[in-house]
């Protein structure tokens, strides 16, 4: 019952090689990562302390963003290291088993899914692309119609004497501001759409993630597109070049490329494939 808890990171093919990881990779809580093998698969895992990873404490800890960050980064580090050597199918964070026996049981249960994913994802990487609507100032500088900020030096219909605006002027100004804001969003939306459609056309698969909240990402600009693209490894450079082109074309928008990542967002089969297979 009290077998040691094992934290699982991801699954690779068991090629018979002595170790599917570069030496010295440390996992969550500093534990040494190793491979546990079963039926042609190997799960990368490391022991973790029960006082953090038993069910009760784990639930509590997941609420703790600092703890979560540490574990998430460690998880990502191990998946990365494995991805450098070959194809890895990551498992979700906080997948914890009891002893090596538990890990093998997991491999047994997930065998078809893991082998299917490994077959599909071999030689592919994931690229992340985000589009942000820049701040108003940047947009104006980029040549967009600038919404006249309060106190702008040259307001054309300006009888606005030093005292207050007339009611009609006020309304007019509000309308103009609102219209400018709408145009800004419209442009951001069109830009995001263009980026997504173009890149989805280049990628094998595409997936939209929810836009990121600035409170977590630390980015103040508004995230209007957050997408992931599955790209054959050898097409990566072309893909990145295309992203750069798009970025240059889209005034007032900021395009961010991250990756390559292990194919986290694509471990599930493409529903389109499944539909084809079924018909």
């Amino acid at each position, binding site marked *: 019952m009290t077998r040691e808890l094992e934290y*699982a990171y*991801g*699954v690779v093919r068991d090629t018979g090689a002595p170790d599917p990881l570069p030496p010295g990779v440390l996992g969550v809580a500093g534990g040494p990562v190793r491979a546990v093998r079963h039926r042609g698969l190997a799960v990368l895992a490391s022991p973790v302390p029960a006082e953090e990873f038993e*069910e009760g404490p*784990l*639930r509590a800890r*997941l*609420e703790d963003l600092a703890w*979560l960050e540490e574990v*998430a*980064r460690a998880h*990502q580090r191990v998946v*990365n290291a494995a*991805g*450098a050597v070959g194809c890895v199918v990551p*498992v*979700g964070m*906080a*997948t*914890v*088993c*009891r002893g090596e026996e*538990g890990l093998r049981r997991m491999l047994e249960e997930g065998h078809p*899914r893991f082998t299917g994913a490994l077959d599909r994802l071999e*030689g592919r*990487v994931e690229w992340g692309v985000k589009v942000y609507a820049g701040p108003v100032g940047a947009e104006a500088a980029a040549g967009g119609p600038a919404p006249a900020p309060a106190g702008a030096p040259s307001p054309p219909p300006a009888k606005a004497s030093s005292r207050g605006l007339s009611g009609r002027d006020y309304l007019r100004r509000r309308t103009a501001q609102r219209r400018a804001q709408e145009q800004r969003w419209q442009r951001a*939306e069109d830009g*995001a759409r263009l980026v*997504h459609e173009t890149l989805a056309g*280049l990628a094998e*698969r*595409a*997936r939209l993630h*929810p*836009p990121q*909240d*600035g409170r*977590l*990402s*630390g980015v103040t600009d508004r995230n*209007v597109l957050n997408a992931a693209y599955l790209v054959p*490894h*050898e097409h*990566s450079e072309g893909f*990145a070049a295309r*992203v*750069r082109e798009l*970025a*240059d074309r889209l005034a007032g*928008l900021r*395009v961010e*490329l*991250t*990756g*390559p*990542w*292990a194919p986290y*967002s694509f471990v599930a089969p*493409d529903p*389109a494939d499944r539909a084809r297979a079924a018909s």
Partner: protein
Amino acid sequence: MGERDPLTTERGPGGPTGAPGPAAGAAPYGSSGREPSGFGSRGLASPGQGSSGYYGLAGSGDSANLADILERVLDKGVVIAGDIRINLLDIELLTIKLRLVVASVDKAKEMGIDWWERDPALSSRARGRELDGGDGGNTGGEDRP
């Protein structure tokens, strides 16, 4: 529950780029040694990760955006039950998930991105929450003297 992947945007079969290149057996991620990210062209932000070394995989540096890491590590990847029964259906993770998106839902909706409505994990939980939120709905109302 719905087995389909709620976030996948489907392209027509085939697609303009034609057949994917052969996997060629070996080629791990990023073995080209080039770093396609981090070009400094106008408007293109570099991901800000540290040098990703010969792996070429992002996020190895500790500077990768936490939001980028969390959204992958938390609920992408294969979701499979370990022996410790905690997974994405757990409310704690949902909280985080909501935290990730809450400020942007309206905008996403406008763009036609409605992943959360078809995300079985999220919507079932959200439903559960609503019920809980009823506070003393069907089963509650236990008046202790």
